[in-house]
């Protein structure tokens, strides 16, 4: 993307108070990353656009945006880091592995078709060894299996009905890897009287943005924004079930990627549980819940926190009788999207995750709930527990009769 339109930064309003260091998950576990204060506004003062980047450690910023959230001075620390990361990696070049990890949407439907064979391959030790050796994808990491039919294919066989229409941005992972999240979303929305529409959509682009590939991310964004704009202009609200996709579309499309139409879309785009909370506020949420005596723990993903909507899933889940929901008081799971798959970053990812795993261990839940697929992968990997999207539990709590 054209550097002239990169957003203005705010490094000079940083008062060096160090609050961001107190929250940064990466500098907490490794001295290799100097922390948000140094890497962001600190280093920014020495950066010159026409000189080569010297920020070898910038690629270790996991992109959680917690630093932005705790800064009382309003410094866009994570944005400074992301732009610096883009410059560093543009100059240094990105390995094929990074392209592969950020373009899984291109082979998702084929992978889904061949999932019975492919999934065996993905779990195979020799295969993992090859991937680690040649692609530097860490073999300790489980690769997510594919499902058939995809969510979109399943949806085609449905006849969604309701008094009011609503559009759904489901995201790649729901489409090909966790189809039940999409099913549950549709079922809960239908139980609340909505007819679900699936506008044409591609990857939201957040994996590319995460490695500073502004151009790749913008390409995705341009496609999605025009499709979502059509939905909005035909009077629909849009909901998302993945907090990362949602955060990307709502906040990064306009500000970072300068995508036309995105600011018109954003006010009509809602986190799934934010939307359900609005229904609850208007006293029209379907709350015919049955008792669900399960002990769960809820983890709020960084990008959900960064949406600035509080913890809506927690508020809705607490309406289910019998369901125990403990909030996990830890910031960042350490997965960072594709970050945790990379061999050179796996140990950092795992170390950050250990703090979360420890907190979960103390709560002793039967299952863990989280709104982000990355967090769910990491929690499964580190705890071996059953990990679901909160909407799946909400669907289970709704009486069968109201679902049909």
């Amino acid at each position, binding site marked *: 993307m054209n550097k002239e339109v990169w957003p203005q930064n705010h490094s000079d309003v940083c008062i060096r108070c160090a*609050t961001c260091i107190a929250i940064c998950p990466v500098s907490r576990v490794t001295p290799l990353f100097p922390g948000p204060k140094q890497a962001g506004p600190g280093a920014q003062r020495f950066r010159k656009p026409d000189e080569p980047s010297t920020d070898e450690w910038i690629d270790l910023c996991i992109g959680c945006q917690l630093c932005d959230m705790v800064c009382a001075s309003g410094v866009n620390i994570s944005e400074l880091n992301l732009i610096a990361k883009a410059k560093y990696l543009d100059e240094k070049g990105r390995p094929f592995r990074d392209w592969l990890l950020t373009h899984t949407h291109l082979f998702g439907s084929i992978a889904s078709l061949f999932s019975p064979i492919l999934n065996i391959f993905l779990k195979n030790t020799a295969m993992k060894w090859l991937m680690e050796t040649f692609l530097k994808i860490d073999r300790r990491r489980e690769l997510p299996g594919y499902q058939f039919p995809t969510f979109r294919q399943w949806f085609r066989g449905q006849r969604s009905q309701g008094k009011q229409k609503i559009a759904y941005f489901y995201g790649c992972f729901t489409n090909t890897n966790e189809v039940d999240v999409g099913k549950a979303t549709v079922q809960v929305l239908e139980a609340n009287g909505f007819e679900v529409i699936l506008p044409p959509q591609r990857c939201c682009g957040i994996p590319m943005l995460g490695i500073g590939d502004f151009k790749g991310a913008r390409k995705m964004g341009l496609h999605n924004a025009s499709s979502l704009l059509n939905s909005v202009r035909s009077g629909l609200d849009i909901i998302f079930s993945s907090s990362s996709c949602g955060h990307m579309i709502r906040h990064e499309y306009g500000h970072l990627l300068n995508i036309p139409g995105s600011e018109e879309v954003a006010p009509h785009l809602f986190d799934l549980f934010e939307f359900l909370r609005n229904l609850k506020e208007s006293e029209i949420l379907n709350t015919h819940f049955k008792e669900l005596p399960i002990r769960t723990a809820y983890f709020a993903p960084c990008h959900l926190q960064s949406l600035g909507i509080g913890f809506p899933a927690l508020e809705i889940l607490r309406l289910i009788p019998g369901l125990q929901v403990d909030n996990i008081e830890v910031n960042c799971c350490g997965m960072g999207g594709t970050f945790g798959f990379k061999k050179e970053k796996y140990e950092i990812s795992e170390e950050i995750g250990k703090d979360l795993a420890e907190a979960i261990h103390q709560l002793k839940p039967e299952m863990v709930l989280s709104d982000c697929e990355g967090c769910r992968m990491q929690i499964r990997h580190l705890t071996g527990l059953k990990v679901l999207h909160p909407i799946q539990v909400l669907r289970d709590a709704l009486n069968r009769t109201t679902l049909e």
Partner: protein
Amino acid sequence: MHFDIIIIGMGLSGLMAAKTAVEMGKKVLIVGKGLGTLSIFSNTIDVLGILPQTEKMRDGLSQWIKEHPGHPYSKVGSEKIDKALSSFLSLFPPPYSFQTMDETNCLVPTGAGTLRPTYLVPATMSGGVCLREGSGFMVGFRGFKDFYANQIASPFKCRGMTLSLPETLHREVTATALSRLMEKPSFRKSIAKEIKKNIKDETQIGFPAILGMNDPVEVKNDLEEQTGARVFEIPILPPSIPGMRIFNCFKAWLIRKGASFLLGPSISKTFLKGKRCEKIEILHPPIVNSYSADRYILATGRFIGGGLNADMEKIYEPLFGLPVFQPPSRQEWFQKSFFSDQPHSIHQAGVLIDSFFRPVDEKGRLLLENVWVTGTILAHHHCIHEKSREGIEIATGYMAVQKAFER
């Protein structure tokens, strides 16, 4: 969304206000642009450090209130200050509890090698209160720039040592990284071994305040067992791990009790109708969300927290545009010397309130009916000079909510 009360500001005062409202069974939203200053200033709880160590806090406060009728403490009253402090303390049951030394101020050693008076001290720091000359041994870490063991040790005629970090290759280490390392038994074992090699007949070991985020007393006890000496934490430069412990504790409690917790975006606009605040808007570009409540608490702090701003001419309150009591001209903001014995006048600037904690102008006329003001943004205190920051935050945060729901 509509709430019974919206609390603006996530520092200690806002958190105390939120706790108080939640305990009254109210529907609460707490909004914070950033973390407040707990992670910057707070380690122990100062109430009125300026009092001599011989004087009981309760007596000193009563006298102070008589002599300073405009001070925030005088608006609260000594009985309610007690209640507010008890409410704060109830969030910190043992092991990580706060205690007073005989209900008077006590002196804790600091990372600058000085002694500082304070009132409530966490269990991990109480060991430092009785530091005697020659009996302490200070431990720093190579690459940790906020604590120089030998420099801190020398005013106390003690010895110090700087440990190398086995698990780090880099030149620098942060307080959070050290704090996390401290939670690992294997790390504690290795440093205890090093310390034992170097310690002679010292009976107390002083560490920077990085003995773990989640269970610092366990870390302290384990180090004591391994070294045979009494271990204590010394408050250091920001970020303050003890301040984060306080913040985390409030946050967990509030979320558990069902308060809405909104950390990050700042309030972009308030909507007033006559003397009432109708709603607030939060801009998180490109989204604007609005929230309304029957009552609002302004707990946005002073200059660092963003509650007060200064331009070249004057100091102003940016959110509601409340008048700010301040020195008549910029020339009078500061003393000639930064380290003057007299407090800088700028620090007494702040928002004026009536006896109900509602904002008033200089003539005492009520400005807003459903907004209550609390914390260090208030006028007529010198919290730096008086060493009263946390006490004011706790007492006024508690009291403002009591007043807000009084009628």
